């Protein structure tokens, strides 16, 4: 992969309560990485900092861009994406949701449509393409979140609890998509989960967060 992420000694606290207490790790090769931990362990905060949605109190999350000098913030942000646990779908059709990320990049209509339709097909939502996204089930919404992210072809894909609180059928589909993206598409997927079985099923590179500290699994 051309984008490499190095996290150094990150600390973060909310209202005086420490959430991350000096976390360091790096993601250099493509594939699937899992941040595992219980609720409140700091894994979502770490993911948001890595995805440049939040700024750490101390330490840094630095992207190495493969020889290219430091990119403007927005250009770097457009090479990565994070699918939030709640996804945050727009009150419009499934297709328009997936087109959003492509349209804001100024992509041509025809190319954008092709990419969006391919992403929708990849997550198995073709039959719901023209349906309002807010009418989708919880599992389908997660799959839409994945389609929206995959359409913009990120070099690093962050997923915050992508299969939590969904039915078993959708969970299987989501896990298969993640495995395919990591292995077949040679992309970097960094995801969180609190489920040990799921973590081990998806990756051999599992990091365990406990009370804001990283510890060996």
């Amino acid at each position: 992969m051309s984008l490499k992420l190095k996290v150094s000694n990150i600390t973060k606290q909310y209202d005086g309560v420490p959430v991350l207490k000096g976390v360091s790790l790096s993601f250099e090769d493509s594939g699937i990485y899992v941040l595992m931990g219980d609720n409140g362990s700091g894994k979502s905060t770490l993911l948001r900092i890595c995805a440049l949605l939040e700024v750490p109190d101390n330490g840094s999350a630095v992207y190495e861009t493969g020889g290219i000098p430091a990119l403007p913030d927005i250009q770097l942000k457009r090479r990565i994406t994070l699918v939030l646990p709640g996804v945050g779908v727009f009150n419009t059709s499934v297709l328009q949701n997936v087109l959003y990320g492509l349209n804001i990049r100024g992509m041509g209509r025809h190319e954008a449509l092709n990419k969006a339709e391919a992403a929708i097909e990849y997550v198995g939502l073709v039959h719901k393409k023209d349906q309002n996204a807010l009418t989708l089930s919880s599992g389908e919404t997660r799959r839409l979140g994945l389609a929206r992210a995959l359409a913009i072809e990120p070099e690093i894909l962050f997923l915050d609890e992508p299969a939590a609180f969904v039915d078993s059928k959708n969970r299987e589909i989501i896990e298969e998509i993640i495995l395919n993206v990591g292995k077949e598409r040679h992309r970097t997927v960094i995801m969180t989960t609190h489920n040990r079985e799921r973590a081990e099923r998806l990756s051999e590179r599992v990091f365990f967060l406990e009370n804001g500290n990283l510890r060996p699994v």
Partner: protein
Amino acid sequence: MDYLAEGFLKAIRLILSFDTELTKIILLSLKVSGLALGAATVLGLPVAAIMGLKRIPMKGVLVTVFNTFMGLPPVAVGLFVYLILSRRGPLGFMGLLYTPSAMVIAQTILAFPIVVSLCHAALVSVDPIIRQASRTLGATERQAAVAVIKEARYGIMSGVIAALGRVMAEVGAILIVGGNIAGYTRVMTTTIAMETDKGDFELALALGIILIGISLIINFALHLVQQKGARKFT
């Protein structure tokens, strides 16, 4: 009771005959209220967006002020605009008093806080995750703000339609600043007030029926917009 039925029949006949005076009054009403609504929306929507999407000092005070101004008494607004536009007022040199422009100004002032308050409420009711999701997909701050505005579209439309309802039914302010001059500043509500005063109910009733019809259409549109917006929660 006969005079009521007779007046009502005459009013219907007047409407069906497409009376020139009646048509002129209706068109001027729609023009004044439409322009006022357009101005209030153009001015009010950015204010609502800044209040709803930016961190600004005294936001709570501003929200309270605009909420209070939603119920501005039209006669007080009329008086205020009259004093500003009268010959001795600061804008008296413009010669706008007793013109349709003065009526548009007065109605804009009445509609502006309604547009700001209701559009602000619509914007802040959008789930914060929408803005975050836009940013995760690569949106700039401006693009993320546009995404939030798009999500609030039904609430924004409701606010604009509610403001239209308010200005269409308003009489006090435009009577003071427009002067109810026949063929020039006479609109539906001022005509109804004047004709009723004269005891001539034919034209007043005809305009009353049309005004109620317009109010019904506005409220029906509002209902449709709200229903469409509410669909996402069902």
